[in-house]
């Protein structure tokens, strides 16, 4: 299963992912309810991207009081039956990635659903900070960069 990997060292906070997500998922430009967010909790110098990581053991599944969140055993995608959400916010509080967002049109909490396997945000990310790839590829890339930084070699492009 492919994952949406984020290389936070490459993110420059342009916000393209946020605006395209809201256009695609909500049909309007509403970055504050986008499922991928550039978070500015501490201001511009501490901004970071948060989006659902479809965790291997998602805390939101057990936190959900109505049991409407499931992890697909084949694809690994964590999804939810939003029509049954009663906005208790337990998933939002428990999410370690801060990735749960309130959708005012649905009156429900939502998360990234990977756009059915073709995430829009990845296509507009100008720096390559967002990638949709196999977990092995993402992991290998990060391990390679870490090893090279330790060894003092130039970072591979």
């Amino acid at each position: 299963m492919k994952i949406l990997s984020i290389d936070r060292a490459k993110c420059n906070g342009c916000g393209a992912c946020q605006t395209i997500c809201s256009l695609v998922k909500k049909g309007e430009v509403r970055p504050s309810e986008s499922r991928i967010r550039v978070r500015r909790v501490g201001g511009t110098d501490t901004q970071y991207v948060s989006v659902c990581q479809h965790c291997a053991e998602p805390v939101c599944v057990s936190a959900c009081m109505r049991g409407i969140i499931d992890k697909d055993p084949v694809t690994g995608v964590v999804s939810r039956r939003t029509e049954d959400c009663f906005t208790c916010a337990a998933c939002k509080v428990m999410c370690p990635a801060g990735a749960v967002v309130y959708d005012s049109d649905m009156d429900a909490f939502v998360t990234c659903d990977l756009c059915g396997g073709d995430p829009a945000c990845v296509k507009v990310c100008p720096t390559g900070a967002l990638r949709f790839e196999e977990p092995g590829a993402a992991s290998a890339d990060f391990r390679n960069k870490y090893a090279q930084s330790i060894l003092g070699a130039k970072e591979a492009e």
Partner: protein
Amino acid sequence: MLKRVVRYAAVDLTNRTADIKEIQAESFGTWSMHLEEMGFWWEADASTMALTTGVLTGTGAPGTGAFIWSYLKNGKLQNVAAEGRLGAAMRYAGVDVLVLYGKSETPLCLTIDDGELALTEQAADYASLLANRKNEDAVITTVSRKAVTEDKYFAISDGAVAKRLLDKGVAAIVAEATGALQVADASRLAAICTELYQAGIASGAAVGSSRKHPVRFLSLDSAADLEGPVSYENPVEAENAVYAALGIIWSKALERCDQKRYTAELISACLGTPCCEADLDVLFAHLAELQQKKVEGGAV
């Protein structure tokens, strides 16, 4: 054909009141409004300042963080382009144009939130405003003699604009960006935006990634230096100022794209009315003509 409904906020700094109205503006509601539909502001008060967003501001395409400051100098309207989150945040909060008239004797902070404006005397330093904002998407701009600065690191005006704002008693502007911008054809707009971002990526000219150099909102090539001084640079060359009036600053990474065609397509997707390159030629000629117009400004 070139019409746009503009939500403008008239802010009376002397009496600390604000009023939002809608007008049907010609020429897509660019700075032409300030000389035509809204010329009465400058005729009544020569020190009036305006912050104008374009029809494309905040819509998502690369470079659509553009907005324009306008003021009267020696009888002519001066337009200073800027790129950042403020214009977009204003539109999400329900305001397309901000008109500031009158003068406050004490420094004020103007807050725009979900169609409501408020003028308060709260502390206008960045740290206090950051601590008191309602949500983390809020855009905080502070005014010093040197520049208007957005989110602490991005200069969004030159000293002339900043000094005029301070003289009018405006020390800070906070836009709580939790609202939405409706567009006519979201799917088409998303497709065009994706095409443009991919063209920018393919050009190899988009600014590199670095957490020490965050870029301006929706920009491919304008970054701040977290460790360097904050200073304003005009983001547009003279011939591209008209695009900035429409709310888009074309990146160098997209110089091979047919900018006029894409601008027309973006406008069509946003407004739902047909717009072609010939329409833009008419508009650009009109704006160039207006730039020579003199305004009879009234007493301050």
